[in-house]
């Protein structure tokens, strides 16, 4: 396979001026990341600072109701509230080893921004977070968290003033500040080497879960289900199982409100292949190749593209990708909260909702592991609003 490609997907479609810094990151990924010293330092940080390993939790009430064993991989218990910290600490540490003094990153809802700000503060790097102006208004609490963590938050006014524009602006800034800055890309998408680099830092999810499930149940899970926006928690949750054909893998995309033609965040199911943000992958676009706006009730999935490896895994059939609409997501959020005492993030609620909606597709007595990528405290405002209106 061509370097940086997953089948026909992936690549490095960026301005020439970004080739040198991306090559520098690629070299660091190949030469620094595998060393024992780096791995030890990262493991220590993940354990003592982020809170790894995260447990797997059996859900007794829901399992009884569903007729199969439902388990959760608890990324929601991590510092800063989601799996994003795995990648932010990994890239932050790599940046430090590369001699960089500053981290820059895009953020949509603010989860990756908060994780990057925390990692930068911890590692003694300065930090600048680019966020669509509309998101800055919608996510005031996360903006405040980032600022308390000593990050400089830049409101991006261009384009649609959301995540995709924040990525554009971070790429632009990186062009002119590449000697001192590392772009801590937030998901397993973007130009090579980011899809591979982010996967390597999120792989820890499936590394742990494999061992934990074997220990707890004596076998591998029958199915693993994870939500997919850009796709970093899903690729991390799947990575160690891709070569285990007995394990069914399901990614779940956000269908938006669910009416035909509504704005959504489901390029794998409803898009077509094209180039955005440096890679060739499935994409929400019009016939002229202009990028379409996306929508989801969960800001963390609200993105018109998806990581190239997911496009490839869909094409080969190794992973199947389902769809869940906003209203079912809210029901799943409420059901897990009430039944098991865990508030899931709206992103992760997509994976749960898919399992609830397709319970009949799992054999009685089988074991299903849902990647609970983040906690739902940040979503209380949205949930409250839906309940009041409902």
């Amino acid at each position, binding site marked *: 396979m061509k370097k940086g490609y997953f089948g026909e997907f992936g690549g490095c479609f*960026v301005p020439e001026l970004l080739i040198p810094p991306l090559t520098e990151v690629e070299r660091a990924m190949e030469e620094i990341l595998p060393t024992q010293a780096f791995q030890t330092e990262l493991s220590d940080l993940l354990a003592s600072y982020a809170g790894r390993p995260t447990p797997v939790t059996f859900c007794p009430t829901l399992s009884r109701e569903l007729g199969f064993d439902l388990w959760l991989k608890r990324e929601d218990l991590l510092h800063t509230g989601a799996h994003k910290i795995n990648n932010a600490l990994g890239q932050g540490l790599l940046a430090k080893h590369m001699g960089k003094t500053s981290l820059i990153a895009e953020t949509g809802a603010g989860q990756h921004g908060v994780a990057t700000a925390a990692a930068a503060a911890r590692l003694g790097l300065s930090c600048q977070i680019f966020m669509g102006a509309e998101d800055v208004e919608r996510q005031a609490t996360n903006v405040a968290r980032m600022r308390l963590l000593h990050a400089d938050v830049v409101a991006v006014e261009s*384009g649609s003033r959301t995540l995709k524009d924040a990525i554009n602006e971070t790429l632009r800034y990186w062009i002119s500040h590449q000697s001192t800055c590392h772009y801590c890309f937030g998901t397993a998408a973007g130009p090579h080497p980011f899809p591979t680099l982010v996967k390597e830092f999120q792989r820890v999810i499936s590394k742990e879960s494999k061992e934990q499930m074997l220990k707890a149940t004596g076998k591998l899970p029958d199915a693993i289900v994870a939500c997919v926006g850009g796709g970093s928690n899903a690729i991390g949750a799947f990575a160690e199982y891709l070569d285990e054909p007995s394990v069914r893998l399901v990614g779940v995309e956000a269908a938006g409100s669910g009416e035909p033609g509504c704005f959504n965040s489901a390029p794998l199911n409803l898009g077509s292949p094209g180039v955005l*943000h440096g890679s060739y992958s499935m994409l929400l676009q019009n016939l002229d*190749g202009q*990028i379409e706006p996306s929508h989801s009730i969960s800001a963390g999935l609200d993105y018109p593209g998806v990581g190239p490896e997911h496009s490839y895994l869909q094409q080969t059939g190794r992973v199947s990708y389902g769809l869940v609409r906003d209203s079912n997501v809210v029901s799943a959020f409420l059901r897990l909260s009430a039944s098991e005492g865990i508030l899931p993030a709206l992103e992760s609620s997509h994976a749960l909702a898919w399992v609830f909606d397709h319970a009949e597709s799992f054999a009685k007595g089988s074991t299903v592991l849902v990647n609970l990528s983040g906690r739902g405290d940040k979503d209380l405002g949205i949930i409250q609003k839906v309940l009041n209106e409902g």
Partner: protein
Amino acid sequence: MHILEEKIRSANSQGRLALIPFLTAGFPDRSTFWPTLMELDENGADIIEIGVPFSDPVADGPVVEAASKQALSEGVNLREILQELKERRGLVRAGLVLMGYYNPFLQYGLEAFARDAKQAGVHGVIVPDLPLEESQPLRACLRAEGLALINLVGPNTTSERMRQYASESEGYVYVVSVLGVTGARKELPAELCETLKRARSCFSLPIALGFGLKEPAQLSGLPAESKPDAVIFGSAFLRSLSEGHSVQEFLSVWK
């Protein structure tokens, strides 16, 4: 020799820099774009770069991005640009180059695009998000129709990489003056002289300098051997049009 190279050499043989203005399709608005293009042609543009609008222009600063956004909101698209160029074929003396991001060309279909661009009288294409490693499919389609894929290099492009580009290049080479996005700047960076010298030693093609240019004085500090053969101006020109200045006014300072 490719016709775009000829256009620049011909200007140089008259003892002047070749002038390459950039104009976003549909700018200043749908109805005035074509007359503006014709004015450029009549007022000494040797090559005209027509910007194909895209929703996510990562290499562009605010001026070009805003022009692109406005054009999209007015419904300007690649198919229409090619159609309207075809209808005016033979009326423009300047060389014609389309500049735009990869996805709209890709969705059009690379082979169909190369064929239709040829029929529309286009001589070359610039794709700012298509580095050497990804450029083969488009380059092959364009080459089959005699069109050049113009490559960009910049202050952080090594000699080794410039030579790799040189072996694949036609028309001219686009040297980006700064580590940054498009947009006029007061001063060009100190390392520009070095960048131009390096490009000169790696390319036998004419060198066109772009990004950040607004007035000839910016080039006055360059020693003769690192002077470019052509200058490209986009943002400064678009801004000048927005402020109500004429094409003639803008171009006259460069002649």
